[in-house]
């Protein structure tokens, strides 16, 4: 792929993503359809303008992909909330909660953490074998170490999101929360694993004298991990919306 094609393709995908996703999300029966239609028309219009800018600037830069942030936070996110009225529902005067602590309900088994530590150690041993006196691979490998420290912390944070119950403490709502919570925890575990792989891979390639290829792999891999993170975040939001709608339905 040459530079101009990349400068065109990547921002185009990123700019089309919010409109495609916002249009594809299912609408809850209780949603304000008129408002959604108005916002969707506006989003597609703004997307057309963004696409025109991307096409015009493609020979120069690929940084036009940042327009997708404006499209997402300015309009697509509002459509997402409008389609899922449960997300905007304020809590009533009766508040219910489970007495089970969530900190001890992590879906990630101990063996997975041990595996992750061994994986990073194996990477370190491979680098030590190939890097000799080259310090750069170790600098990059320290990124893998950082992620190894961050991942458990992020996964634990994912378990601590508020989970208000309905007044009857419906088991289906508890199950929906559990699914959403497990998805987020595993999602972060996967993100940590991908980031560690990326850092270790790049460090090992440099240690093997494949610096040029490492730059390509790092660039494309980093972009893919970023996009996958965005998709994962959106999927987690969809699950949150599903739970919020279920809670709204159970309360009414």
């Amino acid at each position, binding site marked *: 792929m040459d530079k101009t094609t990349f400068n065109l393709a990547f921002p185009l995908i990123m700019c089309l993503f919010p409109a495609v996703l916002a249009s594809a999300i299912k609408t809850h029966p209780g949603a304000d359809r008129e408002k959604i239609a108005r916002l969707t028309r506006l989003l597609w219009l703004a997307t057309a303008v963004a696409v025109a800018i991307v096409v015009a600037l493609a020979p120069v830069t690929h940084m036009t992909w940042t327009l997708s942030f404006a499209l997402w936070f300015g309009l697509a996110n509002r459509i997402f909330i409008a389609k899922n009225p449960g997300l905007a529902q304020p809590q009533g005067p009766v508040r219910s909660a*489970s*007495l089970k602590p969530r*900190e001890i309900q992590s879906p990630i088994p101990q063996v997975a953490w041990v595996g992750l530590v061994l994986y990073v150690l194996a990477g370190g041993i491979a680098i030590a074998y190939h890097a000799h006196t080259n310090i750069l691979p170790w600098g990059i490998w320290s990124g893998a170490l950082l992620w190894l420290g961050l991942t458990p912390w992020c996964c634990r944070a994912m378990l601590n999101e*508020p989970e208000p119950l309905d007044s009857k403490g419906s088991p289906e709502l508890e199950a929906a929360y559990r699914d959403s919570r497990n998805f987020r925890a595993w999602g972060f575990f996967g993100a940590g694993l991908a980031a560690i792989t990326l850092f270790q891979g790049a460090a090992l390639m440099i240690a093997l004298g494949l610096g040029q290829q490492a730059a390509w792999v790092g660039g494309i891999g980093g972009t893919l991990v970023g996009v996958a993170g965005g998709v994962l975040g959106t999927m987690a939001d969809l699950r949150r919306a599903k739970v919020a709608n279920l809670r709204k339905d159970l309360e009414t």
Partner: protein
Amino acid sequence: MISVRLDSPTPLVDQLQSEIRAAIARGLLTPGDQLPTVRQLAGDLGINLNTVARAYRGLESAGLVVTARGRGTRVTASNDRLSPEQARAEITTALEKVSTDARLGGLDYGTFRQLFFQISNEIYGEETRHG
């Protein structure tokens, strides 16, 4: 599960304590069970952290839970903190207060009795069939 009412005249701290005490009395929480963290319970109920912390402290001074740094708050005892005589005296005082409140609140004897048996049946559960 526990529930609190934000629009109730009873303070939230008292509501929380009473809900957790009831869960212990009903056997839903047994000695050794861990309670949610202050942050989790406050987040789920959408109330202030200090309110939950005060409720936990109250339960701790009543001898029902114990908080250890780094290990969270655990249920310690169900009904063995008082001698039978002390418990009887405490309950008599509480029942006198409840009966007085019921009468002053305009509840007739039949309704009060029905409520009393309904709630005590919920708490004593199986024991009511054998007693």
